[in-house]
Structures are given as C-alpha cells and as structure tokens.
C-alpha cells in the first residue's frame, strides 16, 4: 500500500512517499502503529494526525485494502 506523508510527518519519516505491506483486514491504526514502531518520534503526533484513504478523511478504525493510498495529514499551524 502506498503511504503519502505531509509536512512535519514527511520530515519525521524522512520521505514523502513509502510503501507498507499490511496483513489482510488491517486498519488505518495498524498502518500507523507499524510506522510509529520504526520512527518513535511519530508518537507525539499520534492523536492529532488525520488520515485520508483514497482522498477521503476516515477514522482510525477504517479497514484498508491492497492498492489503497493512505495520506498522513498532521496539523499545520504556521501563518
């Protein structure tokens, strides 16, 4: 599955785009946990980041399918 990371998360993941191999029936929260296990710094944005599956913002419980695109959207506050 293709993962797109924006703003602060792009920096923490050191990439704007990566691929994740998820088990069948995995949810958005599983994808996040997998990434957070590799990059501990993600933890501080765990509660405030939103997720868009195929262009629609969804809850953490949403199931993912092969071929989905998951965008990680941390809050951006500067002005």
């Amino acid at each position: 599955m293709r993962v797109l990371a924006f703003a602060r998360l792009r920096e923490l993941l050191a990439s704007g785009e990566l691929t994740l191999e998820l088990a069948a029936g995995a949810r958005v929260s599983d994808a996040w946990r997998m990434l957070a296990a590799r990059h501990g710094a993600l933890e501080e944005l765990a509660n405030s980041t939103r997720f868009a599956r195929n262009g629609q913002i969804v809850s953490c419980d949403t199931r993912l399918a092969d071929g989905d695109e998951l965008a990680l959207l941390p809050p951006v506050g500067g002005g």
Partner: protein
Amino acid sequence: MAERTSSARLSARALRRYSRHLLIPEVGLTGQERLAAARVLVVGAGGLGSPALQYLAAAGVGRIGVIDDDSVDETNLQRQTIFSASDVGRNKAVAAAERLRGLNPLIAIDALPLRFGPDNARDLVRLYDTVLDCTDRFPTRYLISDACVLERKPDVYGSIFRFDGQVSVFGAEFGPCYRCLYPEAPPPGSVPSCAEGGVLGALAGVIGTWQASEALKLLLGIGEPLIGRLMLVDTLGANVRTVRFDRDPDCIACGARPTIGDRPLLVSDEEASTSDVPEVEADALDEVLRDAFLLDVREPHEAVLGSLDGAVQIPASQLEGRMHELDSARRYVVACRVGVKSLWAVTRLREAGFTRLQHLQGGLLAYAARHAEFDFF
C-alpha cells in the same frame, strides 16, 4: 460603456479601477457591487495575511478589518510583503492598514491592534461577512473556528509549515468546521511554528493568495469553494491535492450536541504547556519586585522606550548564549511585551536548572496600562 456607468454604488472612478473584474462575466457590475458592500475580517497580518489583505483590498472589498497585536520584526520581511523595512517595530495591524489605504483609497480599513481572544472573538466576527484565518497559533485557529460556527460565518483557513500548506473553507451553515478536521490540537512543541521551524517565503504568498481567492468566490457566490475539502500544497514536489472530509456528528462545536456553549473555547498550547508557571499579575509586580529581579526578555526594538529600573535585560533571542549572566539562586520575574515570549523563556531557563521563576501575566503592556509614566505602546 453607458450601461457600466449606471451603478448606484460604484463611482466612475471605481468602475475604471475595477474594469478588469467587470469584464469577467462571473463578476461583472453586480459582483463588483457585492464586493463593495462586503466586510471581511483578516485575523493575523503575517505571512498569510500580507498577500490576502493586499488582494482583497485591491479587489475592492468595501470594508476590511485587520487584527494583530504583534509588531513587525525584521525576520518577518522575508515573507510579509505588506511591510516596508521602515515598519519594523510598528504594530502590524496599523502598518498594514496604512499600506492598504494607500493601495485602495476607495475602501474602508479597520486597524485593530489587539489580540483575537475568547472575550472579543464573537463580537468581532459578528461585524463581518467572512473571516480569514491567517494566524500562526493553534489556539487562535480553534477560537476563530468556534466564533465562526457560533456566528454562522465562513472561516477561510490557511496554514503553512516550511514547504507545505493547507487551505480550506469552514463554517457552520456551509459544512464541517476546523474541529471536524482536527478535533485535537497537537501537543506543544510537536509542530514548529514559522518562527521556530522556518518557512519558504513564497509559500506564504501562494497560500494567502489562495485564501483571498476563496473569500472572493464566497462573497461573489461563484465557483466551488473548498467546503468539506482540504487542499494540500507541497511546494517541493510541486503537487497540489485535495482530500474530502465530512462534518463530524460528534464535533463539540458544530455537531449534533455541541458542548462549547455560547463562547469560543480556548485550547491553548502555550497555556497547557506552562500552566504550572507561577504568574505575577501586573498590579502585584511592584510588590513582588522588592524580593525578586525583573528579567526583561523583549527584543531591543520592543524595548526602545525603556524598561523598569533595575531590570536585567536579555532579549529572548539571545537567552541561550547569555544565561551565564543570571544567577540561579536568585528569584526572577520574567517579562516580555505581552506575556508569550516570557513563558517560552521560563521553559528554557527551567531546562537549564533555574527554579525560582515567575512570569508577568499580560507582559509589560499590562503593567504599562496601569502606569501612566510607562507609556511605550
């Protein structure tokens, strides 16, 4: 040309000035009259506010309010193109209003050198038709969104971080609000501000200009505004995407059972992170200073009109390198202009081992308001 001079609201001079709008069928005379009758509030005259304000003023929006309690700093000039080098040290709302009046004398500008806060949010929003969120603080973003939900006004949102920008349009009658998108503010320090993390100057221009364009669409009633859609601008990859999002039925502001009441809710990163810092109220400062030192962390341009007698002056920007000048056995009351930078300074000093620290609530401005001889604003 005869039909174009028959406007009840627009003078011949205005018709000439706005002719490139009048030529667009979607705007025309009716649309231009609508803009002339419109009132827009821009919260924050910084990186986003600079382009947004200039395009709204040039477009002929009849009344524009600009609110900002901050003053122009030299580091702002890299992106805040509404200001001249000679504006450094001046209040942003006042300096921006002056520039806008020069740009378009046919419109009215309200300069509001105040902080947009829970006490004035609803009253301010009520006076305008549309609000632009051009702030750089998360707590203010939630305040703007709540006030717009309560007053049923659209909230044209923009935000930036280094190379990434976001734009959307929130508003109760029009779709989801900011809290539907981001119900939870990030923990303090996890998302750097422009001052902390930096930002590409031109990105501020892109996002602020897009906000102006969305506001003009709303006022004109044309096109497809970014309602229920979040636009993501990635400057480095030169990609622009939009994602859809829905109203959250459990939203505490615009959901089925709102719990914020009739007042915008302050979700403050600063307050949350430093709630345990003992505060000194302006009225009590003289008393407290009999037994403590005042540490004035204002920058030199903010302190041009002096400080209190006996104050230790170390600008916040020099604090890291000059901490050795302080004695951790002493008691300090840390003060800045409005009481935000001082909280930051207290946090840094604590990390360095200082324990006897308090901060002046409301900053030296609050103190000055009670002492006529100390009039530096």
